[in-house]
């Protein structure tokens, strides 16, 4: 159990400490980081399904300029580990993941704030011409910041997972119902953030078009994408033609 908790703590640490996006870019998403946790916990199948359920509310997850709606990098590994240790079902795990992710936003903000110190340190080394230390500043200190902010809480949460599970079982049905309903609404946050990010007013009707095609016509997301690409290409060409004339 201790070894598993340490490994989960490491995964949670690296999910925020992006040493190279060639590897870590997908660790932002619970479906992958949670699956890694499922592997080290020795329950790949159940863990994978919990991880996927945790990822669901984060399907509109977007980080732009270092701000984010919820800390999916924490919710993914820690939520999956907790779900396995406490024996939660998918809906419960999904809601617990959202709560973990919302609370852990503060860990992300602290990470982004504390890391500025290493940049100041790098300023000094660059002034002295010590390039090796500049590179070190980029890679090393932020690992320990993430270990403290993400790894340590992850470790403690996993170690106490069973207690948490027992405590959750004592909740009355209406509380669990409330969580389940909230879990269904929460993906709207991600979608709303994407809208806010993309939302040039004249383009907003395309959001409704996508929704209508999926809801009323029953097209899959992939089909909607293809229709969208066709529309985009047509509009792009007609715009250019006007400029050409």
């Amino acid at each position, binding site marked *: 159990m201790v070894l598993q908790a340490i490994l989960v703590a490491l995964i949670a640490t690296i999910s925020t400490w992006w040493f190279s996006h060639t590897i870590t870019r997908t660790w932002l998403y619970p479906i992958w980081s949670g699956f890694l946790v499922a592997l080290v916990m020795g329950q790949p199948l159940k863990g994978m399904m919990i991880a996927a359920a945790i990822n669901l509310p984060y399907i509109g997850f977007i980080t732009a300029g270092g701000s984010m709606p919820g800390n999916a990098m924490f919710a993914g590994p820690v939520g999956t580990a907790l779900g396995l240790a406490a024996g939660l079902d998918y809906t419960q795990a999904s809601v617990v993941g959202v709560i973990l992710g919302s609370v852990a936003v503060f860990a992300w903000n602290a990470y982004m704030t504390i890391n500025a110190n290493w*940049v100041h340190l790098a300023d000094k080394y660059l002034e002295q011409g010590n390039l090796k230390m500049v590179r070190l*500043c980029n890679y090393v200190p932020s690992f320990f910041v993430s270990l403290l902010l993400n790894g340590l809480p992850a470790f403690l949460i996993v170690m106490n997972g069973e207690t948490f599970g027992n405590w959750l079982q004592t909740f009355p*049905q209406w509380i669990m119902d409330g969580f389940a309903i909230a879990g269904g609404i929460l993906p709207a946050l991600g*979608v709303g953030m994407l809208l806010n990010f993309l939302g040039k007013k004249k383009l907003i009707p395309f959001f409704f078009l996508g929704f209508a095609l*999926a809801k009323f016509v029953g097209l899959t997301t992939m089909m909607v994408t293809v229709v969208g690409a066709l529309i985009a290409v047509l509009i792009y060409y007609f715009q250019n033609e006007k400029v050409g004339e």
Partner: protein
Amino acid sequence: MPKLEKKDLVKNWLLGYSSETCYNYERLQGLGNTNAFMPIIRALYPEEKQAEELKKYLIFFNTEPSWMGTVVHGITAAMEEQRANGENVSADDIISVRSALMGPLAGIGDVVSQSICYPILAGVCISLALSGNFAGPILFEVVYKVLMLTLGYNMYMLGYNKGKEAILDMLSTGLLNKILDAVSIVGLMVIGAIACGNVNIDLSFLEWEFPNALGSVVFNVQHDVLDTLLPGILELAAVLGVWGLLRKKAKPTTIILIIFVVAFALVGLKALTGAY
């Protein structure tokens, strides 16, 4: 004549993926870019000038670093090469080209990666995983990385080979904005479809039975009112409500709290039907 070899370019491209290792609010990817440009600076400048030349990277910089923004690094590498060969390129020129490009490319890169590729891929892979298929996470990892690295590499090389003129031309003729509009259209339609499949609000538990002269009438809020009005009306309302709050600068955490309040208000309604 110092020249950049292929291996310097590849190193620079790959190290660019460590742009966010020491991610911070003050200069975002500044330190990461300083790290990424070491191979370029080492190949082009004598040792005593290297630290000075690197200073132009240890400043505020933020773009989308993995999918499309690599083009900025490619352009920069080409400019550094010209500068080292005595062409008229000042450090300020490099800084201003980089800051002019980082915004538009963050826009295009974030739309392509975070609002088109990720939601589509995650949507497919999550449903695979939920049905117990290991292809879910594995497909996610492999497809995501193949797309990211292929696009990232080609954008980098495009930037290096075409240089700043090509890209700045696109910026000044408004072509870059048109491309952004085009990918945004696809992105918006995708998230419309995502909203349909993933936001779930079902009030069918709000059901009352009224005895009357005919026997009894069952009145179901979801089936008898909302679905006949417009399927998905609650889901749309939730998304538009969140969007409205975001436009009023509400914080995501506040919105999460509001969602929980709404959820428990609905539980209260459910209690009125005598469910508990």
